């Protein structure tokens, strides 16, 4: 416990120091890199709630990322630039889309669930492609980052970085509480043995759906941050390979562990960063790494440090 808290504290302190170190080294690139890692960590964290803790293999998680991105992009294109409008609307939109997709998908299980979530996210992808007004296939650039107020200017890369860091920390704490609370135990119970859960009196469907919506909304926040980060709206963010990448991050880092998703996002994106300098086929290396992790560390990288009961 002590060692783990210490490691976590060190990681947070390290992340908080990134902009200072980057400035000292005159390498602003690091702020961008770690900002991106943290945004994807939020997406992975949200998927981990349903995949890792709830055992729901959703293969369309990028859809909610996309809903967050498009909501901010579309509002911005129509001159609504305030974060206080954009963000709540974007979160509500991703929650609603998750509610609709979840309500249908959760009536199935196993391979059918995987396929139906994949199908829904591909529908949204093609919806994005068909939105010619908002760039269609090519996407469109975001005129400006969301306006939070003169005291917090997101156009400043360092300010934006700290907003992302705070968001990641808040979601980490929320997730940590949730999975140990009554709701989280129901989720884990469903993963372990759904039939038994029903037999002891849990209406499992509504708990799964609630988790699905929470995860969708949380991923919508990742979308909000991502579109502000890249200043770019594109259906590419909803492509099924993106859903696959988020899933790989979760599995790499450790399903059903608290720090796993962030760890997975970091390793995934750092590998990409380092290896793509040598070859565009960097996933040739990622593949074997993933296989080794899946075979020898069932609970991912985090499982090597974190001893926690399912």
């Amino acid at each position, binding site marked *: 416990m002590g060692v783990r808290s210490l490691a976590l504290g060190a990681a947070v302190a390290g992340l908080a120091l990134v902009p200072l170190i980057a400035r000292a080294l005159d390498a602003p690139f690091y702020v961008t890199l770690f900002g991106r890692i943290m945004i994807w960590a939020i997406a992975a964290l949200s998927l981990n709630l349903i995949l890792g803790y709830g055992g729901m293999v959703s293969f369309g998680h990028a859809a909610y990322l996309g809903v967050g991105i498009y909501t901010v992009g579309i509002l911005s294109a129509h001159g609504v630039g305030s974060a206080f409008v954009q963000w709540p609307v974007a979160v509500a939109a991703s929650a609603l889309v998750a509610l609709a997709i979840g309500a249908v998908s959760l009536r199935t299980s196993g391979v059918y669930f995987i396929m139906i979530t994949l199908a829904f996210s591909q529908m949204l992808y093609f919806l994005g492609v068909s939105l010619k007004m908002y760039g269609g296939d090519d996407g469109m650039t975001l005129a400006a980052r969301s306006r939070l107020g003169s005291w917090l200017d997101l156009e400043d890369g360092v300010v934006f970085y700290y907003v992302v860091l705070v968001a990641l920390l808040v979601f980490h704490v929320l997730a940590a509480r949730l999975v140990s609370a009554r709701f989280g*135990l129901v989720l884990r119970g469903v993963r372990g043995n759904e039939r038994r859960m029903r037999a002891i009196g849990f209406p499992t469907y509504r708990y799964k759906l609630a988790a699905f919506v929470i995860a969708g909304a949380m991923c919508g926040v990742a979308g909000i941050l991502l579109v502000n980060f890249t200043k770019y709206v594109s259906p590419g963010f909803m492509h099924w390979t993106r859903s696959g990448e988020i899933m790989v991050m979760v599995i790499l880092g450790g399903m059903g562990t608290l720090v796993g998703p962030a760890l997975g996002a970091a390793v995934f994106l750092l590998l990409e960063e380092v290896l793509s300098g040598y070859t565009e086929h960097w996933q040739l290396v990622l593949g074997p790494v993933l296989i080794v992790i899946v075979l020898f560390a069932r609970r991912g990288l985090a499982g090597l440090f974190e001893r926690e009961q399912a």
Partner: protein
Amino acid sequence: MTALLVTEHLSKQFGGVIATDDVGLSVNDGEIHAVIGPNGAGKTTLIAQLAGELAPDAGTIRFDGRDVTRLPAHERSRLGLARSFQVTSIFRNFTVLDNVALAVQAHSGSSFHFWRNARRDPTLREPARAALAAVGLADRAEIVAGDLAHGEQRQLEIAMALATRPRLMLLDEPMAGMGREDGERMVELLRGLKHGHGLLLVEHDMDAVFALADRITVLVYGRVIASGRPEAIRNDARVIEAYLGEAESARA
């Protein structure tokens, strides 16, 4: 005595196979009603229908005077109908106490709580410990359930059903795979449970059935061929022919 559970004309088919054929039976409060029959007689299918996992094709199930035929499993559990499983069905990665506390949680209001640590909630842990004590697993509370010995896992099955504070328990072969010693302990446990609960017991161990049952119903190919007090069943010619004779010869 009042009948807690009553079925009438219960029928279920899978394709051309008749699994449950016009079954009528009842279980009273404070009674152990055993259902026996050769393999494939439809005992587990019957339990699945009573518990709400399978919908019958025809017939009614009444629990405590209320028609529950179309009620889903979790709502029947809320009304006080609990079940245990033939193949041990526990949360293997949870501790023993977590398993039972989850069953308590299912019956203590909504679980839409996102902040407080449920593992430190005495309103869940205390009743769970009591249920564990009732089945003799009090000192195994902190063990991971998957690490329990087989007999203990069967006891945990009962504790989880018990923790939902049921009025009637559907027990699907609680002694499955148990050795003699564990089996005897289970018989004592079930005898104790009779007070305050109705028990519907599906069991292959005939010694246990005749030691425990107040009434026995014999099922063959989904059909009730006899029902009555143990002495009557033991001497029933059709039963001996259809079932007990076979079991006796198998044992010899």
